[in-house]
């Protein structure tokens, strides 16, 4: 009994039901923007501010609710902490009593009882939908269970299966509710100025509301079916908002591209979720996770499900090779890019992995291994997108690739088992990336363009507030201490666990490649962001204001959100200071974020936590500073010395070195992925293959037939006089007609619009496949 904490580890010692009005009524949070969507749709145009006020009020109230939820959740966890302390005192007292009268026998017995009790508790809690928040004490890991708030009711029943909707609110959900509502509120306020006077102003706010609503719905969903609904709704809203200015072809193309690329991943989502449903027998997220962690689902099933879901993550969260839609999605209004393509929608994939982490953790064997698809995809994306960001001239595209790269960080962190680090990076990234996008929007609002080389430069003189906030957010993104990005990035690097060279321990496996890629990515991030800063805010103004004088700083409704986001980008990192960073009475400030957000639960896999190391933090900071100074030297000193108005060296590396030039071209062409998709795959199946068949028919077969006919006829004419004409003629005609018939048949079967032929091919193919199935299976 005295060694309770030792043998239970993270398992529960007692259960407390989390409660509280706001937590139980969390469904109100997505409901508010949903109502606002309907109201704006029907009454928006007749209102004074064209419906914007409805959107802002609803999201503001939702934000207040989310803050209250967060407060109540923190209160619950604190309660649990004090409960643990209380229980410990109680036990110590009892232990004294026990040892007082024949201690040995009694203690062994009670320890046995305690052991069975604890096992039973674990079993029971597995079915009882229990989550446990860790109450980490100084002397080890004691845990007290906090059941998450799960409210559900039956949606419909069919054939004996029940489909439910409900909410599941735990630390992770509360954190996301806060992030989504906060960013959404700021974006709403920002938009009132940014899209003022737009021809579809009301429509814009309606979709912003619907988007917020569906994302919040996705976040609090209790089961995966509900999550799929939220996921798809988010995709639809993204489609509508990217194509907001659909009159211009590139914009509607970008919207279609985003939608269709996401459909590719959605197939994976549907298949993966179906596999999980049939193997776990339930749609419930908690039950699926429980089944995965308790090995009730076979390992290969979990692996296949994880792979399918990874495809969904790759499309939604813009991971290499399905990331191509995200930079194009910058065709939408900038606030939309900030909200959807930086802070909320694209992290849906990350959130889904974090929610179903039991499945991924077991499916990929994250613990104790050194490689998995998730970590690979994440780290390749991280570096690949970081390189692409160098060659973009459009400021939003640089930020888009930066987003892709940072999402790569998160996916990589999840892949190496650094769950808290990934979620924390999601949290901090949301603030500074939203700040960067809104800052870019503010600049473009002044110069009416996104091209850094042609219409920006020297903006720091004209837009001081935008400049300052942009720089703060940039430093946060670069991961320089002490801003937000540093803490979360450092934690991800710590979590890779492959850093024995830095004298640290811990982590789930030895993901050395992830660590290396992470550090390279940090240097790249620093370098390309330095380039953005120089091109946008330094040098000489290269734009043309068409005689309107110098560009003006944006109005209050744009700058205030920027300042708030910059403040968050500065401060958010302190929420999760690493263990060992502070000592004494201040050590209570360590890992607050992880403490409140990370569930220690039966539905959460037993992940190991890396121990932070000073040497790693210093090394990564030095690498980041090298990145900054290299790019800084190039731009601020060499380019600026050449001429303040120039954007690159006249005879730079790309001009001199052929390899560098080739690399530059590859990056400019975005690794030729778009060419691969449209030219090779799409046109390949549409054009050349069909053309080739047509050509084969026309030129090949027909020509052959004709030639055979012609040549034989010629020969026959030649032979006509010599040999019996009837016989030869007959053979010639027969062969000619036969081959003509063959050509005709081939041509009519394929691609000639005859539905009967299509149906015949379909049925024949089905028959053949069924036959093969019977023969070989």
């Amino acid at each position, binding site marked *: 009994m005295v060694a309770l904490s030792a043998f239970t580890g993270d398992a529960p010692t007692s259960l407390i039901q989390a409660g509280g009005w706001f937590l139980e009524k969390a469904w109100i949070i997505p409901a508010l923007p949903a109502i606002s969507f309907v109201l704006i749709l029907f009454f928006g145009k007749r209102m004074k501010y064209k419906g914007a006020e409805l959107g802002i009020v609803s999201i503001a109230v939702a934000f207040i609710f989310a803050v209250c939820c967060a407060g109540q959740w923190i209160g619950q966890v604190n309660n649990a902490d004090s409960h643990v302390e209380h229980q410990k005192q109680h036990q110590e007292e009892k232990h004294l009593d026990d040892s007082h009268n024949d201690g040995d026998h009694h203690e062994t017995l009670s320890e046995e009882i305690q052991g069975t009790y604890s096992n039973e508790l674990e079993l029971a809690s597995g079915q009882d939908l229990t989550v446990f928040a860790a109450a980490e004490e100084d002397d080890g890991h004691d845990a007290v269970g906090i059941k998450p708030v799960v409210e559900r009711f039956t949606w419909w029943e069919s*054939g004996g299966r029940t489909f439910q909707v409900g909410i599941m609110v735990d630390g992770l959900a509360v954190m996301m509710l806060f992030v989504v509502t906060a960013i959404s509120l700021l974006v709403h306020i920002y938009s009132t100025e940014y899209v003022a006077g737009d021809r579809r102003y009301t429509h814009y706010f309606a979709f912003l509301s619907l988007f917020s609503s569906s994302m919040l719905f996705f976040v609090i969903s209790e089961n995966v079916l509900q999550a799929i609904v939220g996921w798809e709704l988010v995709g639809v809203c993204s489609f509508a908002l990217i194509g907001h200015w659909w009159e211009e072809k590139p914009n509607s193309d970008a919207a279609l591209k985003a939608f269709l690329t996401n459909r590719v991943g959605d197939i994976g989502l549907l298949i993966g979720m179906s596999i999980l449903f049939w193997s776990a027998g339930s749609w419930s997220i908690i039950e699926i996770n429980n089944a995965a962690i308790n090995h009730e689902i076979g390992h290969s099933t979990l692996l296949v499900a994880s792979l399918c879901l990874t495809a969904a993550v790759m499309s939604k969260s813009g991971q290499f090779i399905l990331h191509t839609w995200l930079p194009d999605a910058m065709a939408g209004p900038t606030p939309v890019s900030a909200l959807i393509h930086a802070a909320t929608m694209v992290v849906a994939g990350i959130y889904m992995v974090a929610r179903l982490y039991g499945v991924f953790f077991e499916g990929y064997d994250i613990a104790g291994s050194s490689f998995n698809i998730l970590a690979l995809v994440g780290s390749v994306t991280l570096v690949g997108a970081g390189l692409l960001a160098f060659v973009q001239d459009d400021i939003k595209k640089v930020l888009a690739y930066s987003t892709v790269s940072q999402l790569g960080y998160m996916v990589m962190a999840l892949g190496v088992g650094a769950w808290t680090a990934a979620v924390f990076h999601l949290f901090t990234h949301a603030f500074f990336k939203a700040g960067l996008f809104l800052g870019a929007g503010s600049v473009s609002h002044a110069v009416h363009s996104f091209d850094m080389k042609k219409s920006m430069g020297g903006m720091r003189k004209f837009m001081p507030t935008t400049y300052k906030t942009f720089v703060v957010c940039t430093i946060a993104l670069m991961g320089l201490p002490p801003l937000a990005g540093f803490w979360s990035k450092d934690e991800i690097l710590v979590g890779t666990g492959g850093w024995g060279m830095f004298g640290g321990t811990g982590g789930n496996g030895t993901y050395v490649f992830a660590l290396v890629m992470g550090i390279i990515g940090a240097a790249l991030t620093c370098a390309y962001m330095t380039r953005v800063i120089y091109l946008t805010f330094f040098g000489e103004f290269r734009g043309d204001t068409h005689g309107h004088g110098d560009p003006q700083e944006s109005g209050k409704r744009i700058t205030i959100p920027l300042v708030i986001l910059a403040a968050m980008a500065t401060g958010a990192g302190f929420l999760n200071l690493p263990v060992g960073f502070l000592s004494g009475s201040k050590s209570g400030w360590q890992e607050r974020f992880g403490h409140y957000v990370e569930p220690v639960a039966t539905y959460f896999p037993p992940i190991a936590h890396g121990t932070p190391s000073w040497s790693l933090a210093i090394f990564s900071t030095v690498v980041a500073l090298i990145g900054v100074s290299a790019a800084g030297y190039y731009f601020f000193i060499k380019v600026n010395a050449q001429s303040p108005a120039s954007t690159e060296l006249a005879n730079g590396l790309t001009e001199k070195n052929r390899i560098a030039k080739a690399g530059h071209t590859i990056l400019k062409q975005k690794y030729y992925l778009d060419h691969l998709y449209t030219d090779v795959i799409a046109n390949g199946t549409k054009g050349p293959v*069909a053309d080739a068949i047509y050509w084969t028919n026309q030129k090949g077969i027909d020509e052959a037939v004709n030639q055979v006919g012609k040549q034989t006829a010629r020969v026959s004419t030649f032979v006509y006089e010599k040999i019996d004409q009837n016989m030869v003629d007959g053979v010639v005609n027969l062969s000619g007609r036969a081959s003509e018939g063959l050509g005709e048949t081939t041509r009519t079967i394929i*691609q*000639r*619009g*005859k539905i*009967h032929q299509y149906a015949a091919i379909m049925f024949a193919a089905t028959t053949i496949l069924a036959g093969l199935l019977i023969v070989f299976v």
Partner: protein
Amino acid sequence: MLLVQFLLLSSVLFCIGIYGVLARKNGVMVLMSIELILNAVNINFVAFGTMTNNIAGEVFALFVIAIAAAEVGVGLAIILLIFRNRNSIDLSSVDSLKG
């Protein structure tokens, strides 16, 4: 009674229906062949339902009947439209889908 006798009957009807769909030119005749296919499926549903003692087989047979009614309605509407535009329901002449 054996289960397989019903299944074989159903597969005979199904294949005759397939032949009809592929070999007939007249739109209405193709629809009739599709009805044969749907009925073959229905026999399967009911036979398997009886075998497993599960009422679901019959329920879904009823659903198939309802869907077949809808299908005939829409199918005939389409055929009427083709007839109005081309003055013939010869499906071999309907080839504007060609690539």
